[in-house]
């Protein structure tokens, strides 16, 4: 496979056939594919370190936020701990993906971002990812920085932004939450694909690698993102209908 620029028609066709092969492999693998988190050991030490450095400020923003809000009101820490645990549990719910017939897991960051705001979401994501890496062998410690970046930061901030943009543009709460869940999920998976391709590819070929990984993840992630949109919207609507005062952003949210 040459560089993307010099690809002939034939090579291009062959490239996509290979992508299809990997997609089939991924879908056929009995456990849920590791699309959401970068598995331990994939990133070379240099890239692992870079993502730690990039993600750290966001987690520290979350910590700062936590500290400021805790100083103001004592209930914030248990509230964030409990809501974090809930998001963690939700992200472990098995969702049957219709197209490929496998089950996958929602990432839950869309919901987390709506309920808790983006920086707290980054903090919670780093915690949940650590626990997952240790007790579930999902993701990893060396890839914690990259995973926090793709899930907590990219997923969290896009989810939050989409939700509030949607509401500002006059879309209903349901539609905004749906979009937030969907976009946060897809953003997370694009981030993961981007980081993996950057690390795996040699000079010049990263774009084709990126496309290949994206394509390999697509059969599960595209429908999963839609499902996650529905779940996020359903969950948010449930909370709003049951206890609208609880979902008051100022209690949990982070625009502090």
């Amino acid at each position, binding site marked *: 496979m040459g560089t993307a620029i010099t690809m002939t028609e034939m090579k291009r066709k062959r490239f996509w056939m290979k992508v299809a092969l990997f997609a089939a492999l991924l879908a056929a693998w009995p456990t849920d594919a590791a699309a959401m988190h970068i598995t331990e050991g994939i990133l070379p030490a240099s890239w692992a370190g870079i993502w730690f450095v990039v993600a750290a400020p966001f987690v520290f923003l979350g910590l700062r936020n936590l500290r400021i809000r805790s100083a103001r009101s004592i209930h914030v820490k248990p509230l964030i701990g409990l809501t974090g645990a809930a998001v963690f549990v939700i992200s472990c719910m098995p969702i049957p993906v219709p197209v490929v017939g496998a089950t996958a897991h929602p990432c839950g960051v869309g919901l987390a971002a709506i309920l808790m705001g983006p920086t707290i979401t980054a903090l919670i994501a780093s915690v949940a990812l650590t626990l997952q890496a240790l007790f579930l062998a999902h993701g990893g410690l060396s890839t914690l920085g990259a995973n926090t970046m793709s899930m907590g930061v990219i997923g969290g901030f896009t989810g939050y932004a989409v939700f509030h943009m949607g509401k500002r543009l006059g879309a209903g709460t349901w539609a905004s939450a749906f979009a937030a869940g969907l976009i946060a999920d897809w953003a997370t998976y694009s981030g993961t694909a981007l980081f993996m391709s950057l690390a795996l590819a040699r000079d010049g070929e990263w774009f084709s690698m990126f496309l290949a990984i994206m394509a390999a993840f697509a059969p599960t992630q595209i429908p999963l993102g839609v499902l996650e949109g529905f779940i996020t919207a359903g969950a948010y609507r*449930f909370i709003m209908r049951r206890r609208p005062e609880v979902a008051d952003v100022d209690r949990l949210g982070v625009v502090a």
Partner: protein
Amino acid sequence: MTQQNSRAALETRGISFTYQEGTKALLDVDFIAQDGKFTALLASNGSGKTTLLKALVGLIKPQTGQVLVEGGDIRSMSSARLYGKVGMVFQNPDDQLFAPTVAEDVAFGPRNMDLPEAEVKARVEEALFKVCAGHLAGKAVHHLSYGEKKRVALAGTLAMGPKILILDEPTAGLDPMGEEGMTRLLSDLNRESGVTVVLATHSIDLLPLFADRIFVLKNGRAIMNGTAEEIFRDQEMLKSAGLRLPYVSALLHQLKHYDGVPINGLPLTIGEARKRMLEHIPESALVKSLIKEPDDERT
């Protein structure tokens, strides 16, 4: 209804279940609930009651053994068929009310059965009426009291029209009136509507006394089954299972075995106990003037 005999509505044959991390919650349990009868599982905390009930409705799959509903293995039953026949009410009502309002919540099951909307409405109304909660239909679920939530949760299952009703600790957390009301409700459902009732409880003084048959579990094993009289007669067994006699029976038991009053049998209810006690009090000792007009508070 209680006459038509000995067809098993629910049956387990030698089921065992071990939780993923190693707790052996059920060990070779044979359980039978006869059609139209009232069957109770009586056991102390952590004996496997909830686990057994979950196995009965296929929510957990025993590693060995078989679960039969009306003679058919539940593994070969579609969930629509199974849950059309068997309804389950869980212990914590907060975990089973998921619609914003009572009426919507009760309608959840019937709607999922693809019934026409008119039929759904009728069923919701009927179910709420049965549990004396008709006036709650329009209320928001989280504004209900605990006792009300318990009754609405029951209505949500009744609305699906199950022939077999399984309940986990239906009276736990209820006050005396709630406890009595729920017990009467279940007993009526069983006697009047012919619903087969299976329930788990660790309360002793009221609920089990209504059961046609009681199964006692201990550490995941069904160590005994029989009528209430049979079960409570075996004090050794009760003690080993961490249970005790109903208070009234304990009084009469002590009068007999500590004081030598030759009481016949082992009365379980207040009414029976009164009769037995009067046999030993000379007519001459009774004071007529004490007797008040009896009201309807007799149990």
